[in-house]
């Protein structure tokens, strides 16, 4: 009862309206996945399951989803490792340039994607002479995903304190054992939360990916982008989007349960 009830009602109404606005376009997407018109004419005059049928048969979409999952997994793993290392370094030690380091970690995500995209593409192709491939996409994605893991782990380490680790050392455990048996389990939920966010970021990323993907690489966003161009393919994209939304509720729910608080999810 820390606020007047009138104010609470106001909040409730605002939140409801906001959620309505958030979900209106998504509902439109769902409706359009059944819309018989290829060009999403509104209001839909005819409903059809044709697009769902086509999506189920679409080899291109399936391959794109798999590529996206592959890229996101790899990028998440790299981000987890590097993010954790950086967080531990920053949280546990005092050193000159701490602020600069945390700024550097944020930079890839704070700078507009197009800048990161063309900078990395230029570096890969012109400076290093590499060919663009799934690996270059992974490198690009990992770069801006580090920050999500970093934030989560940092917050968790701050709450954890060093007490337990010191106790473990006092009891004779080596540093690596302490990490394996004490630190890591305590960080696990933060890692999962951070990892899930990193996965989501990488999965839906289009801007940086456009510049760092090789000629044959199609992540899902690239597939969507290309198919919105093509004749007869636009509506299938809606179907894919609906499927993604439905499927995504599961990992979010899982992450929620594990993280307990929002510190995990706020790391973006």
């Amino acid at each position, binding site marked *: 009862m820390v606020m007047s009830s009138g104010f609470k009602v106001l909040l409730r109404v605002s939140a409801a309206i906001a959620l309505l606005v958030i979900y209106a376009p998504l509902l439109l997407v769902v409706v359009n996945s059944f819309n018989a018109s*290829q060009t999403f004419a509104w209001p839909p005059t005819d409903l059809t399951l044709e697009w769902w049928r086509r999506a189920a048969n679409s080899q*291109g979409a399936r391959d794109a989803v798999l590529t996206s999952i592959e890229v996101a997994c790899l990028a998440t793993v790299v981000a987890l490792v590097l993010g954790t290392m950086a967080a531990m370094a920053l949280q546990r030690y005092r050193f000159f340039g701490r602020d600069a380091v945390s700024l550097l970690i944020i930079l890839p995500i704070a700078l507009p994607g197009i800048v990161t995209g063309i900078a990395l593409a230029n570096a890969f192709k012109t400076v290093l002479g590499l060919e*663009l491939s799934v690996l270059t996409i992974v490198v690009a994605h990992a770069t801006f995903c580090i920050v999500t893991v970093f934030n989560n782990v940092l917050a968790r380490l701050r709450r954890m304190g060093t007490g337990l680790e010191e106790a473990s050392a006092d009891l004779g455990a080596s540093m690596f054992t302490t990490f394996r048996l004490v630190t890591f389990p305590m960080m696990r939920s933060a890692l999962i939360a951070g990892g899930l966010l990193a996965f989501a970021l990488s999965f839906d990323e289009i801007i940086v990916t456009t510049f760092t993907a090789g*000629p044959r690489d199609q992540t899902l966003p690239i597939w969507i982008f290309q198919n919105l*161009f093509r*004749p007869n393919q636009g509506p299938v994209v809606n179907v894919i989007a609906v499927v993604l939304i439905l499927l995504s509720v599961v990992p979010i729910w899982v992450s929620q349960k594990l993280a307990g608080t929002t510190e995990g999810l706020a790391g973006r």
Partner: protein
Amino acid sequence: MFHRPLPRLAAVCAALTLTAACGTSSGGDSSGGDGPGGFTAPDVPMLQELGDGEGEVDVLAWPGYVEDGSTDKSVDWVSSFEQATGCQVNVKYFGTSDEAVNLMKSGDYDVVSASGDASLRLIAAGDVAPVNTDLIPNYADVYDFLKDRDWNSVDGQMYGVPHGYGANLLMWRTDEVDPAPTSWGAVFDENSPYAGKITAYDSPIYIADAALYLMKTQPDLGIENPYALDQDQLAAAVDLLKTQRTQISEYWSDYLKEVQAFTTGDSVIGTTWQVIANVAQDSDVPVDVTLPEEGATGWSDTWMVSAEAKHPNCAYEWMNHIISPEANDAVAEYFGEAPSNAKACDVATKGFCESYHAGDADYADQIWYWTTPIPQCLDGREDVTCTDYGDWTQAWTEIKG
């Protein structure tokens, strides 16, 4: 890598008025044919003999040109090619000619479907090789008026095989626009009744459309070729386009976007491709198209081979396949353009070749195909320097504001 003879360099410097210093080093030899307007094509070796297929080919194409059934099971002219030649096709799509030019520099692709505004640039940069048409049996059946043209050959040497061509037409909503327009004036009229609902193609090459209109309506400007514009002529075209900008609903480069805009009524009149009109009409949107009285710009696409092709034999096989009657007809019908192979009309669905004016050299001649503007005036004038594509790009940014 810099094949630039000094006279051309001086012309470039003079034309780039916005850039102060432009003293670049010129070096290297420049043997090879002379391109239209006087650029010199670098010496890139041509394949002399067709060997065994390499097992795969990397294709860079306009969306819809290389369909292998993955988007629509019934649309597939790639699988037959893969089975017949053993060359697996890997395709990457691009959205604009400029992207194509950019992507070809990487050397990652063996063959590209280049429109006329990309082909010369690819030749000049040494990114594509001359094509040995003797190695391509189906080339003999290609319409003659598509061979040895300005945009696909240099000094009589072909640099690719013609894919097909189409015109940029004027489309309008029959229920919103009355009377039916017959002139491009309908989109350039500064007091248009359709203000706020006019659409245009989103590329600097659209400046040529404005120039074409000025060519007919303001003959004292002296425009002979809409791609050969000196500073004053470009300025006139830019003014026309800036006026038009105030009435534009949106520019389009994605043709699904244009179909949608016409379906919802956000655009009611503007530049289009035949395929867009067909898709709209299929969805019961009341539109009609016409080739206006001033003529039109258009595109004529050419399949070109990369100078650094890793799979040159499969590349030649692909080019032969895509202009074979069945494949050429299939892609022309899917995309909505005129085929380049005369025999394609033998296998085409009834009425298709007529509606797309396949083989109609007169219709084709009314079309000013996309060509990259260069400082050496394409209309042959020697006393002035024409504006080049860099100028057009700058101008386009200013027009859009």
